[in-house]
């Protein structure tokens, strides 16, 4: 139990990395998804290629790659945290773009046609008709993605960000009790994931599209 108390403060950083990565993935993933469905051939190809390439790379490779890019270019002051968010966010962008693309396509073309027939421009139709429905449809898959990013945030410990996992290593090294430290951090991850999923389940029930 003492272990949990030592490790827990690092949850702040884990949550920060997770939330920022998910937010980045949400905004960029949504843009990519819209480009995939409504863009011209060039835009469609670019968006599809990004998603294909990034989804083929291990997240750990992205974490190291972005870390060295940020270090070398001194982007955002060469911050580890920034590189961590960029790496996880870049990966999540690819996965979220697939989630939102699927949701948009499952709406069918009729919604856009109806909106345009009423005189809405394409951006107005996207904002008021397509995306509100797509986001609702995407909640279950998005909830899954949120849990994955939360757990993958442990990978950024590899470049020295002291989030939960790295913190557990520190505690273990100090106490020489590795098993307890990793059981403790596992318990913390479980609780965080559980709460995230329960929260999103609630959101889904609240906003579910009646079809």
């Amino acid at each position, binding site marked *: 139990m003492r272990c949990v108390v030592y490790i827990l403060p690092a949850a702040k950083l884990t949550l920060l990395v997770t939330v920022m990565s998910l937010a980045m993935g949400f905004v960029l993933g949504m843009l990519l998804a819209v480009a995939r469905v409504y863009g011209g051939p060039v835009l469609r190809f670019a968006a599809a290629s990004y998603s294909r390439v990034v989804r083929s790379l291990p997240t750990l490779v992205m974490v190291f790659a972005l870390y060295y890019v940020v270090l070398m270019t001194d982007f955002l002051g060469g911050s580890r945290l920034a590189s961590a968010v960029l790496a996880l966010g870049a990966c999540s962008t690819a996965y979220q773009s697939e989630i939102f693309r699927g949701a948009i396509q499952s709406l069918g073309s*009729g*919604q856009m*046609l*109806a*909106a*345009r*027939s*009423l*005189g*809405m*421009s394409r951006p*107005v139709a996207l904002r*008021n*008709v397509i995306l*509100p*429905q797509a986001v*609702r449809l995407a909640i279950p898959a998005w909830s899954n993605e949120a849990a994955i990013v939360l757990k993958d945030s442990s990978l950024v410990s590899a470049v020295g960000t002291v989030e939960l996992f790295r913190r557990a290593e520190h505690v273990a090294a100090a106490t020489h009790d590795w098993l307890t430290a990793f059981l403790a951090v596992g318990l913390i991850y479980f609780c965080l994931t559980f709460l995230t999923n329960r929260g999103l389940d609630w959101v889904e029930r609240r906003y579910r*599209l*009646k*079809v």
Partner: protein
Amino acid sequence: MAEPILRIEDIHKAYGKTKVLRGVSFDVAPGEVVVIIGPSGTGKSTLLRCVNLLTVPDRGRVWLEGVELTDKAVDINKAREKIGMVFQEFNLFTHLTAVQNVMLALTKVKGMKTAEARARAERELEKVGLADKADLYPAELSGGQKQRVAIARALAMNPKVMLFDEPTSALDPELIGEVLEVMQALASQGMTMLVVSHELGFAREVADRIIFLEDGVIAEEGPPEQLFVNPRNPRTREFLYKLTELYGEHGEPKSRGRER
């Protein structure tokens, strides 16, 4: 004939190698009801979508009230406000209630305040007999009710012309009547209507003119009496015969008590 409100001129449209429309031209007078019939895949939906440019024709021109919509300089969003469209699959916005469906374009396109839009939307729902369903979601409505909401949604924009693409084809037979009644009332109020439908009863009673579209061209057109009784084109006769066999019951629902 009065100055046409809608003029369709030499519309061509191909998808890849498939030539769907091969030169369709006709005028529609104000208040006229034109029913378009024709075999499946012959380009009826494509033709309707070319009228409000949801599909851009490869060639040809569309005029509404003397303004050429196919002109690149025309703001097509503005023009579409004047052309209401009703779809076979209703296409109601599923995340919005009936009244919100009607309100959305009023606020986002016409820039109305919410209260004003709501009042207007409620009036339109009342006209199609759905005042009491205003706060239900599409999933909570029957097919006939959904289609009436869709009609109200289009009418709220104050269109000059209404396009209907097989508005009753997705409906159970017992729900067709309520939608046709709304359309008939609309026609009698002088709305200009372009209707793709195989409801022969409706066509006979409400249409001023019937267009028989086949293989992307107008094979025959004329007043219903002429097409039904004495078609010039043998293909028209054949098609109408098949249609009566297939859809006879729908075309002339017993509940509406029409003589054969």
